[in-house]
């Protein structure tokens, strides 16, 4: 057999789905000589040693780039004060780049450094992103969410605009940190950790406090809620009502560490969360969509199929998954 053909044959064997004919050919070739066997062993070794997915994925380049920029900031801050101002802007640009990809390369960078510009960070479905704000505040932005702020953030003010879900770890400063939620409510803080869920397609805005102090204020209310750690404020803009309850923090903040915790929610809401996390669309039989399911489940790093299996088995449902669409129905 000629060299090229042998390599194609070996490729097929290594890829693991040889045809019957190929198996037969390989058997004959393999048994023909020691040289052939040695060649196969060589390729098998190459195949086994070649890096696999897990090895790659234990390293997160965008997270590392953020960390790298923080290091650069510290280094340059200690050297020249004025360069610090530039380098944090660079850090911001770095974050934006991670989110938007290379489209920015073509844009004039002067835009970023001139008069206050509205900076937008958007995260698509199926993804999430760390954002380092210039004041040291860290924000983890969840799927299908956006965060906006003016480029003079940190100098004149600390105000940001959120739509969707985010977890905040706010650096303590006397200058208060303000989150404008869908232009309907504000959260005012000094330094703390909290989570906000405010997807425009959901009826309720939720703020959960993990640590510190937070003031929650609705635009149309004079009422100000002074929150304590472990509390969740639920505000419904539709009925203009506020309720405060003690909750399991992990259920609201766990997504940052890839937890997906589901407790007594309607099927519709569960599916909405899954569609954001896994970037799929759901079609639910309307008869069951609004029913409250008493699921009590915690998933970490699980695949969509694993989550769907668990939910449908315990809920007496069935599902069909095709490409980016999941159909859920009664059994």
């Amino acid at each position, binding site marked *: 057999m000629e*060299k*090229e053909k042998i*390599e*194609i*044959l*070996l*490729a*097929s064997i*290594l*890829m693991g*789905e040889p045809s019957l004919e190929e198996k037969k050919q390989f058997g004959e070739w393999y048994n023909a000589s020691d040289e052939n066997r040695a060649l196969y*062993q*060589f*390729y*098998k*070794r*190459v*195949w*086994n*040693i*070649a*890096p*696999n*997915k897990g*090895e*790659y*994925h*234990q*390293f997160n*380049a*965008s997270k*590392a*780039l953020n*960390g*790298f920029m923080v*290091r*650069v900031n510290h280094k340059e801050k200690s050297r020249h004060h004025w360069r610090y101002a530039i380098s944090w802007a*660079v850090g911001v*640009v*770095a974050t934006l*780049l*991670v989110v938007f990809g*290379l489209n*920015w*390369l073509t844009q004039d*960078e002067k835009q970023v450094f001139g008069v206050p510009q509205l900076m937008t960070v958007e995260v698509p479905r199926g993804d999430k992103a760390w954002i380092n704000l210039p004041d040291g505040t860290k924000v983890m932005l969840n799927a299908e969410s956006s965060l906006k702020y003016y480029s003079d953030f940190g100098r004149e003010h600390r105000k940001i605009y959120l739509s969707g879900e985010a977890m905040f770890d706010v650096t303590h400063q006397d200058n208060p940190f303000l989150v404008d939620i869908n232009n309907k409510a504000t959260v005012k803080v000094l330094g703390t950790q909290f989570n906000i869920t405010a997807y425009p397609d959901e009826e309720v805005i939720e703020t959960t406090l993990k640590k510190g102090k937070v003031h929650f204020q609705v635009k149309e209310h004079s009422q100000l809620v002074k929150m304590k750690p472990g509390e969740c404020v639920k505000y419904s803009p539709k009925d203009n009502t506020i309720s405060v309850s003690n909750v399991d923090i992990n259920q609201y903040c766990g997504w940052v560490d890839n937890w997906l915790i589901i407790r007594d929610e309607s099927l519709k809401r569960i599916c909405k969360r899954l569609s954001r996390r896994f970037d799929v669309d759901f079609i639910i039989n309307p008869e069951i969509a609004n029913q409250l399911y008493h699921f009590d489940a915690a998933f970490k790093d699980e695949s969509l199929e694993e989550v769907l299996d668990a939910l449908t088995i315990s809920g007496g449902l069935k599902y069909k998954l095709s490409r980016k669409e999941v159909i859920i129905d009664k059994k």
Partner: protein
Amino acid sequence: MKKSDSELLQLYSKGNVLAFNELFTRYYQVLCVYACRLGIEKGVAEDVVQDVFMVIWEKREKIQIVSSLKSYLFNSVRNKVYNISNRDKVKSDVLHQVQYNHETGKYFDQVESNEFSAILFQCIDDLPPRCREVFQLSRLENERQMTIAEKLGISINTVKGQMGKALSFIRTCLDDKYKIAY
């Protein structure tokens, strides 16, 4: 449009930070895995790779890389890892341990194996684009031949053909580089 390494490097030397970010994201994972293969821990590997990028970052205006950026990066990581291993005696003992290979049922020298896998790694990265795509989808992502064919819009026979080419390329590449390394 994907920009080449040298285009990005040139943009960066003129002050375009976004070009630097792109290079960082392009090579970070590969270099970290490469460093690990040379026998250091995950956390140390990340530090080493970031240090290498820090040199590039700081040399902004003065940057002059004669060979390709890729081989500069791989070599720098390799040198740094060896410096760490020499400095740290305990580490170097670990580096020299003899390991049992379940695949072949034989013992082999860890150093030899690290060296081999590290060079293999560069060879995979050097594969012609199409070959590399097929190799990575199959080996890295464990995709089936059918799926690879669909994803790349080629026939299953072409998938096999590209994989065959990849194998032969890797073999020649290992022959070349392995000789240089010893």
